[in-house]
């Protein structure tokens, strides 16, 4: 089962929800797809971390073979190629690595070489695997890093699961009534509702929409709700930092028949734990029960 946490607005509590859900489960895989601000690792503090470089393919031009026909430059719809001083040059920031230039070159003068755009950190916290996608500063698109994080997350999950025969047992999960043999993946998504979010939730079985009960939070919440509805995903709401119920959000959930799975009160203790990078289910029994209950409800919904 794959559960994605998303919110639209930044700072609503996606990472908090994803990290604590994964920690409450105590096994499976946590994948951080918020590659521009990968913060789950600051809370989960994974051990035995290994790194994998993530690259995009960039075209290279063999000056000896290039006859200057400019077919590649004309083909590129992203304006990533320019013909300067009798050879094509590539602007890596706008290249989409579609391979079109290589395809259209009549002289086979175009080849590809990988260009690093980010990395993955793969580690463990007890029985929980932690996969973090990290975009290099200065790079424009996190999508290749997100794709690789999801692929590797699935791969190591599958491999370790097969090797061990079954997943190690864990209290919260059996309480949640989930099959012990079922692989659990929690995906921490980027903010917003653009292509990188789409990429992150594409394969999710369930989406947790983390909502902040303010006018800003509600506006962006409706945008991600629209996105998951468009994709036909099952979803539920977690309202975070609630002091007073925010009526427009409450009535929207009622009208759309969106289940509110949990309410996390505004609590200055929680704020301070999070500021220090603590996993809050390990700080407070009530919070642990809340997240265990959340897992159980999602298990039930699915």
């Amino acid at each position, binding site marked *: 089962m794959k559960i994605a946490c998303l919110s*639209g*607005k*930044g*700072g*609503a509590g996606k*990472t908090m929800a994803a990290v604590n859900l994964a920690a409450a489960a105590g096994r499976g895989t946590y994948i951080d797809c918020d590659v*521009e*601000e990968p*913060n789950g690792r*600051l*809370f989960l503090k994974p051990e035995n971390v290994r790194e994998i470089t993530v690259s995009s393919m960039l075209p290279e031009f063999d000056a000896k073979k290039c006859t200057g026909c400019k077919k590649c430059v004309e*083909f590129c*719809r*992203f304006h990533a190629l320019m013909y300067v001083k009798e050879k094509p040059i590539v602007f890596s920031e706008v290249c*989409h*690595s*579609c*391979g*079109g230039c290589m*395809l*259209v070159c009549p002289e086979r003068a175009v080849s590809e070489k990988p260009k690093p755009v980010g990395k993955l950190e793969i580690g463990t916290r007890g029985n929980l695997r932690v996969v973090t996608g990290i*975009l290099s*500063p*200065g*790079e*424009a*698109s*996190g*999508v290749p890093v997100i794709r690789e994080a999801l692929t590797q997350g699935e791969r190591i999950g599958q491999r370790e699961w097969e090797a061990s025969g079954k997943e190690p047992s864990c209290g919260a999960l059996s309480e949640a009534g989930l099959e012990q043999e079922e692989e659990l993946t929690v995906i921490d998504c*980027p*903010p*917003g*509702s*653009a*292509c*990188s*979010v*789409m990429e992150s939730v594409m394969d999710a079985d369930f989406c947790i929409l983390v909502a*902040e009960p*303010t*006018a*800003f939070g509600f*506006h*962006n919440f409706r*945008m991600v709700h*629209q*996105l998951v509805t*468009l994709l036909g995903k099952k979803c539920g709401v977690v309202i975070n930092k609630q*002091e007073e119920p*925010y009526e427009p959000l409450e009535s929207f959930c009622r009208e759309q028949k969106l289940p509110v799975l949990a309410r996390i009160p505004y609590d*200055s203790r929680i*704020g*301070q734990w*999070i*500021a*220090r*990078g603590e996993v809050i289910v390990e700080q407070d029994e009530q919070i642990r029960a809340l997240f265990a209950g959340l897992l159980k409800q999602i298990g039930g919904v699915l």
Partner: protein
Amino acid sequence: MKRLLILSGKGGTGKTTTAAAFMHFANGKAAADCDVDAPNLHLVMKQKGEPVITEFLGGDKAVIDQESCIGCGICKEHCRFDAIERSEGQYRINEYSCEGCGVCAYVCPRQAIALNTDVAGRKELYLEDGVFSTAALKMGRGNSGKLVTDVKMAMLKHAPDTALAVIDGSPGIGCPVIASVSGMDLVLVVAEPSFSGISDLKRLVKTARTFEAKLAVCVNKWDVSPENTDAIRSFCKEEDIPFAGVIPYDKSASEAVNKGCSLAELDCPATDALKEIFKITSELLGLD
């Protein structure tokens, strides 16, 4: 006219609240919301009149003409974005995955694939009482950097003779942020005193430095963690980045937002702190 961009790295630290308050303090006549993924500034700007609305044309999207398609699957083999799916014996384009590169159309032996312009969002330009430029990207679309540039340029093009333009940016460090940074006189980073906030601040500084942006930093909700606030202060000192001040946690902030007004309209500790930060920011911009 000086151009001030407000960024944060981490989301939800108070960019929009700061931008709206600054517009109020400056009696500003030029603003743009470059957070096209999750725009919010319009909720507190009290813009007047009706906006001029234009479509944002993003990249192209491929379309397969089922009449001409012979089902050879060559397009699917060549697509690098897994955007071509086969269901019920027919090949179809997944519009969310398609990046509009045109490779499928090139390899198709029957010329069955066309590339159509895709409406990827909507731009709104308010021109009564100064200029306010905003936009919304359609669900799941890319090209947000291009839309950010459009929003910013529309504001600059129509800006009246005014001292300060305020631009509300996106969280993160990716294409919308990179697109917003160019041409700015100062980037004010609203940081949050948490482990996440510090990590994101450092990544943002690294990114902004790549593009040679001039920076200043302030800390919101500083009293949630005075230790982390100190850590941010020392980081700024080491990096030689002007520190513009701190804002206390104040319940009035979300109350103001929920009423659709700027924090500047209230009398509360956060407003006083923002006034002080606005003063220092103005000095850094060389305004009186």
